[in-house]
Structure formats: C-alpha cells, structure tokens
C-alpha cells in the first residue's frame, strides 16, 4: 500500500471535495425522501425541498465538477469500501462479544462473609426473638384484662 503523505491540492479537490458533495447529496436525498413520504403539511414541503436540494447537489456535481471518471470511481470505491470494512468490523466485534460469556465468575466475588454465616443458628435466634415477643404480648394482655376487672 502506498503510504506516502504528500497530499497535493488536486488530491484534496479530487477525493475530499468530490466525496463531500456526494455525501451531502445522498444524505439530503435520503432524508428528503423519508420526510416527504412520511411527513404531513409543512414537514412534507420541507421534505420535498430537501429532496430537490439533494438532487441539485448531485446534478451540480455531475454537470459542473471537473473530474475524470477514473478518479471519481476511485474516490467512490475507496469511501464505500472503507465504510463497508468498518461495518464488517463492527459486526465481527458484536458477534465475538455475544459469543463470549461476559458475566464475571463467582470466584471474583468476596464470599468469605457468606461462608462464615451459619444459617441454622440465625434461624434459631430469629425464632427465639419472635417467641419472646409473643410471650411479652400475652403477658401484657393478661395484666390489662385483670386491671379492667
């Protein structure tokens, strides 16, 4: 691959500006088509305006822009190929990430505190506390009834 960094003005005009105009035109045509089809009232009018603006941009590029067909083909193919390569790379990354188990292992968790816990003892303590609370309530209830008598 030719990695030379000598970019002349003609290269900037031939490759950068031509693809800039094509990008603006394609984006305006796409958004104009979308808005003019799905929009209503004022939005639809704006959609038609964007559509005609995009068509005008592309038409200007085709009619007035001084560019050889070979150069334009190279620029277009380069831009589309790079974009396609990026999309393929993104899909590859998503595929690998979905296939890899991304949940952390339980070994990473600090389980020492849980191991020290004796669940049976904790349950017994809770039951005892509940029983004591019930006994207190019944004693208090008995004293109140005697007072009432």
């Amino acid at each position, binding site marked *: *691959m*030719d*990695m*030379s*960094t000598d*970019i002349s003005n003609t*290269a*900037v005009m*031939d*490759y*950068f*500006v*031509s*693809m*800039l*105009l*094509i*990008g*603006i*035109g*394609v*984006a*305006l045509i796409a*958004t*104009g088509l979308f*808005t003019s089809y799905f929009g209503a009232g004022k*939005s639809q009018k*704006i959609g038609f*305006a*964007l559509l005609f*603006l*995009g068509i005008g941009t592309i038409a200007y590029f085709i009619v007035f822009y001084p560019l050889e067909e070979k150069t334009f*083909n*190279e*620029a*277009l*193919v*380069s*831009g*589309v*190929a*790079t*974009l*396609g*390569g*990026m*999309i*393929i*790379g*993104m899909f*590859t*990354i998503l595929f*690998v*990430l979905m296939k*890899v*188990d*991304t*949940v*952390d292992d339980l070994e*990473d968790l600090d389980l020492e505190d849980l191991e020290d816990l004796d669940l049976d003892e904790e349950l017994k303590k809770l039951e005892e506390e509940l029983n004591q609370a019930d006994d207190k309530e019944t004693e208090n209830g008995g004293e109140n009834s005697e007072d009432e008598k």
Partner: protein
Amino acid sequence: MIDIVISMGLVGVVISMLGMGLLIAYYGSSKTRNVGFLFLVVGAALAYYLVEMDTSDVAFMNGMLAFVGGMIGGIIGIIVFLVAIIKS
C-alpha cells in the same frame, strides 16, 4: 479496482477494531477487557500487514480523504435536515 476494495476494506476493519478495542479494553469488565485486548492485537496485526506487507498500489491518503469527505458530507446533510425540521 479490486485492490482498492480489499485494501480500503481492511483499513475500515482496522479502524473499527482499534476504536472498539480501545473502548472495550478500557471500560469492559474483567472478561470483556481481555476480548478488547484481543481486538487491539488483531487491529494492530492488520495495520502492520497493510503498511509493511501489502504490495498493492493503492494510495492510502487518497482513500482516507475520500472516506473522511464522504463521512463529513453525510453528517452535514443530516445536520441540514435536522435544522430544517427543528426550525419549521
């Protein structure tokens, strides 16, 4: 022409591998971080292949100019659309 498609397609794969690899390696959990480093290695290997071993006569800077121009053009077009819709 097929040389341009292959070489610039590989450039696109390198860009996404290095960019996403950096993000995943930095922000990922313990397992995804390793995958991020793998993506970085693959991206670096592909970049090395393109710079040192690829013998095709494809001008890298011209291709990148075309790609960046197309991207900026698309962004400008969408900004024009958003401004027109929001202002209406």
